[in-house]
């Protein structure tokens, strides 16, 4: 899916021929690399042997779990209400944080923040206590803040960045 999206993005940016050649290159490379590494016992080791050089890293499992949890969001806004009542002043409204985490498309400017958040909120956990979907919203806030801190040095290369 990700490869397909990358393909479409390339197609729109650079024209079909270049995108196709890029897809073929990565596709062929993938085939060769998987054949070469087929006998490795540990899939994680195999992954790094094949793709570490391209800048790929294992996904952050906590973040992946939080994304999964955030996808249960009902967008009801109770976390915002409870946060406001508790007198919290988060840089990112808890509901916006959950929505951002569910999509994992974090564009700080679109969220109305000029720069990544360093300390998300007072971590009083009022939002988490009130969430009908049981989302650990305080951890989502912290995770987004961490993502913001890491934003200067991207950890995961997208297919479009492989040359």
């Amino acid at each position, binding site marked *: 899916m990700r490869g397909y999206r990358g393909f479409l993005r390339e197609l729109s940016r650079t024209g079909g021929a270049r995108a196709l050649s890029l897809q073929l290159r990565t596709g062929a490379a993938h085939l060769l690399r998987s054949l070469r590494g087929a006998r490795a016992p540990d899939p994680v080791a195999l992954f790094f042997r094949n793709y570490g050089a391209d800048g790929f890293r294992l996904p952050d499992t906590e973040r992946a779990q939080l994304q999964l949890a955030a996808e249960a969001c*009902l967008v*009801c*806004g*109770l976390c*915002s*209400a409870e*946060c*406001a009542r508790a007198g919290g002043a988060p840089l990112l409204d808890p509901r*916006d944080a959950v929505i951002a985490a569910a999509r994992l498309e974090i564009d700080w400017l679109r969220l109305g923040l000029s720069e990544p958040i360093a300390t998300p909120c007072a971590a009083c956990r009022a939002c988490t*206590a009130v969430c009908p979907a049981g989302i650990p919203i305080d951890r989502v806030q912290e995770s987004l803040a961490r993502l913001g801190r890491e934003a200067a040095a991207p950890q995961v290369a997208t297919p479009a960045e492989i040359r």
Partner: protein
Amino acid sequence: MRAVVIGGGLAGSCAALELAARGAEVALVSAGPGSTALSGGTLDVAAASPLRRGGLPLADAADGRPLAPLRRLLVAHGNAAHPYAALLRGRSAALEVEEARAALDAWLAPSGLRVVGSVDETRWLADVRGAVRAADLAQSGSGEGDLASAEEIALVDVPGLAGFDARPALRMLAAELASIGLSRTLRLATLELPAGLAEHAAAPARLARRLEDPAAQAALVPAAARLGAPRRLLLFPPVLGLERVDRVLAWAADATGCRVAELVGAPPLALAGYRLDRALSAALARAGVEEFAGRVASIEEDAGRAAAVRAEGGERLALDALVLATGRFVGGGLLERDGRLAEALLELPLYDLAGRRVDGVRPRRLVRRDYEGEQPLFAAGVRTDAQLRPLAADSKPRLTNAFVAGDLLGGFDPARDRTGLGVALLSGRRAGIEAAKC
């Protein structure tokens, strides 16, 4: 006499308050907000919508005349499986609803929430999307917004307010009013927030809280004064206060010089449900009901009776009577266990509207590709006897001292026929009254 109520929504709270009023020692276990907290400001017993398929009828099928809510209630009552049938058998529906309204009104009044309306007359209320409903009971805030009672209706547009777009809402409102033949002057009134408030527009709850602050109100007076006009009903998005809607409403009426109300909320702008949830919690505390936060792990049984409730934290609450008001999917009363639909605490048998057993069925087999059509999954609930005691598969009461209230009751689909809060109110009180006899 010790009673335990599981579930802190409208049904569970009403049951606990009735029990406490009868001298019982009541503990209420709540896992957190459920669908009551997601409600939009009405407490409909028998609402209908003009442009919606399914649900209770708006007009009489024979002569096409609009039905009063009471007539609609009797339509639901005539459906033998609907909880209203058992709740209203041998009683006057109008009296029963008025008693419940008055009781709830008294419980909520100290928090500044009133319960207005009756089943004798329809209140035409608009929601944040511009959809109109023929409502009956409603909370203060949205309850004052009867469209039929105003000559001119102005939607208040707050630029930048998240979750509310006044222009499409106004178009929708015009279409809905036309469909019911109600002709009113409609306009848009823009409320420009001054600096200090404008930056809160992206987080409506924060704006609502700021509007409770007298200093913020004073800063907003010049802008608010421009909204007013004679004989105008101003419909604000539901952000008039986070907890004290009465005070902000009074301020807004004063500042604008005309009638003000809130639009009925809908997620993601449903602060009215949050206010209701808070006001119920406050009423429980005043009544001396002990609230426990958390989930129930199990119910201990002894010779066909519930003996105690064990909380997930390990606490054991001994009891003489038990009220189950755990709701359906939002509340957690129904869940998917090992891929199958199940009742969470007692493995009670569940039935859809047609009376088919649906517990143990895969949930995905109980949904149809029809947005407004009948969905067996959302109609699933338990069966009870006339005293609201849940029935086992052999149609005998599963436990002789347990009572069910609210959405967990089967025989209706709250998402479609919109009687969820009405059933919660009537069945919650009844379950409390029955449990108090144990």
